[in-house]
């Protein structure tokens, strides 16, 4: 087993990036088509909410420029998700449910390091992040935001918290795939894509019995709305700017414990997904 250091992790990211570049160069036409599809899909989602805010002169006390800021944040999150999750490593129930975790066990690298690095696709997956960053610059200038180095650091902290929440929730529900690989194979898609539209809703102006469940049980409000308002200098509901970070840490701790338990069960029982002649059940 390789010794894992920061240098080794960066090296693994480098290998993933090199493979991504190789795909882009070898199959440019299809790689560009995929990039465009990703971009169109995300922009359609966020632009629909933005166009509504333009049509109605804002949503629930948020101006159309503030809604644009929120959509920019959402696009950056989507960009990070695509850039770091290109190998089902965030949709981990697919890897578990398909019996592919065993392919990873034979690699001389710890499972954690593999899952953290295999999905890195900066060349074919980075477009949404760049577009999101450009939109954020435009939105920040429209709302006349005073951008300081501390604000940029805070932006990265919020992005990290949002990504941690997405990954932790996915790993939490994906733990079911250790016990029920067939029926839970796509459960991470339900947890991520199934609620994605909801995460683009500005919750401002909605009653608290809608807002609070969306910041606790189903944390869609933490995907873009809450962090955006914090970055705009007015954290909602009196919860404080650090609420998304705290939520991410708690959820990640719970998810790690449950995932580890499921993994222990899996290494003892294995996967029943493949028939002796190779086909998946």
């Amino acid at each position: 087993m390789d010794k894992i250091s920061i240098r080794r992790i960066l090296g693994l990211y480098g290998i993933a990036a090199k493979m991504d570049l190789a795909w882009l160069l070898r199959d440019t036409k299809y790689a560009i088509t995929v990039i465009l599809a990703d971009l169109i899909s995300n922009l359609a989602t966020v632009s629909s909410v933005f166009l509504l805010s333009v049509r109605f002169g804002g949503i629930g006390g948020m101006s159309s420029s503030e809604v644009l800021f929120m959509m920019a944040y959402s696009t950056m999150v989507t960009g990070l998700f695509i850039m770091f999750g290109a190998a089902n490593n965030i949709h981990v129930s697919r890897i578990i449910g398909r019996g592919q975790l065993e392919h990873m066990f034979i690699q001389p690298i710890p499972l954690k390091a593999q899952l953290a690095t295999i999905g890195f696709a900066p060349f074919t997956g980075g477009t949404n992040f760049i577009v999101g960053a450009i939109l954020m610059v435009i939105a920040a200038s429209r709302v006349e935001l005073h951008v300081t180095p501390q604000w940029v650091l805070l932006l990265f902290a919020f992005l990290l918290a949002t990504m941690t929440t997405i990954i932790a929730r996915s790993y939490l529900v994906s733990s079911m795939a250790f016990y029920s690989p067939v029926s839970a194979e796509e459960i991470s898609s339900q947890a991520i894509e199934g609620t994605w539209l909801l995460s683009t809703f500005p919750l401002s102006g909605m009653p608290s019995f809608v807002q609070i469940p969306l910041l606790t049980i189903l944390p869609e409000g933490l995907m873009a709305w809450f962090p955006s308002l914090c970055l705009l200098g007015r954290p909602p509901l009196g919860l404080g700017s650090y609420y998304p970070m705290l939520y991410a840490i708690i959820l990640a701790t719970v998810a790690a414990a449950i995932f580890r338990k499921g993994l222990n069960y899996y290494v003892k029982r294995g996967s029943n997904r493949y028939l002796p002649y190779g086909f998946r059940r």
Partner: protein
Amino acid sequence: MYKYYVTARMSAQEQTNGGILYSLPTVILKICTLLPLLYLWKTIMSSGAKVEMSLEQMLSYTFLSSILADMLVVKTAATGWLSEGVLLKLYGRPFSVLGQLMAQTVGGWVPMLLMYSVPVLFLAPLLGVRLIPASPAFFLSLLLCVSLGFAIDFLFACLTIRLRNINWLIDRIRAAIIVILSGTIIPIRFLPFGLATIMKFQPFAALGGSPLSIFVGAGNVGETLLLQIAWNIILWPAAILAFKKSQEKMVSYGG
């Protein structure tokens, strides 16, 4: 017709083979999306901006869009089945491949209609949603919408064949269309910058947005039906021709 009915029945049963509990996450997610969406519209419409629809109409529009979601933008298993190799087995059965896909899709709607749409109907009065169609033409419009949905889906399946089975890519494009071009989530008439006038003539506007507009009494019934009929006449022959030509190009690696 019996063989199509049996195919549809098998498809419905297949959805619940793992037990009804397995479908619960989808039902919960649908409810969790519907409720905030209704309140989002309440918030937006209370801004006082002058639009062509009332809050009551918009709530009915959103509610109906959620309970009839599968019919308003039809999605068959064709694109996914091609890459998984399942589509090829349909050729071994002694009836039309497109017919099988349609029967399988319609059958697949039944469990969610029973588990989500029907129970949620009882919530409508509590949420202030009125569910009486403004015109009986809604039913004809819904039928035309479903018919056009199949034609468009088959065209997407042909695109998947041409693009070497990248069904994931097709799904992304389709998702974008659902959000912005079909009018099922946001009525096309609400789009700013004059986009509404241009967008209502594109084929996707003849999908879910059309019956929904007629249901709430917000659309010109004659014009809407005419556009739906026209797109059906144009796209069905195109879909059949494209599918016929694409069949020879099908490549599947299996699951």
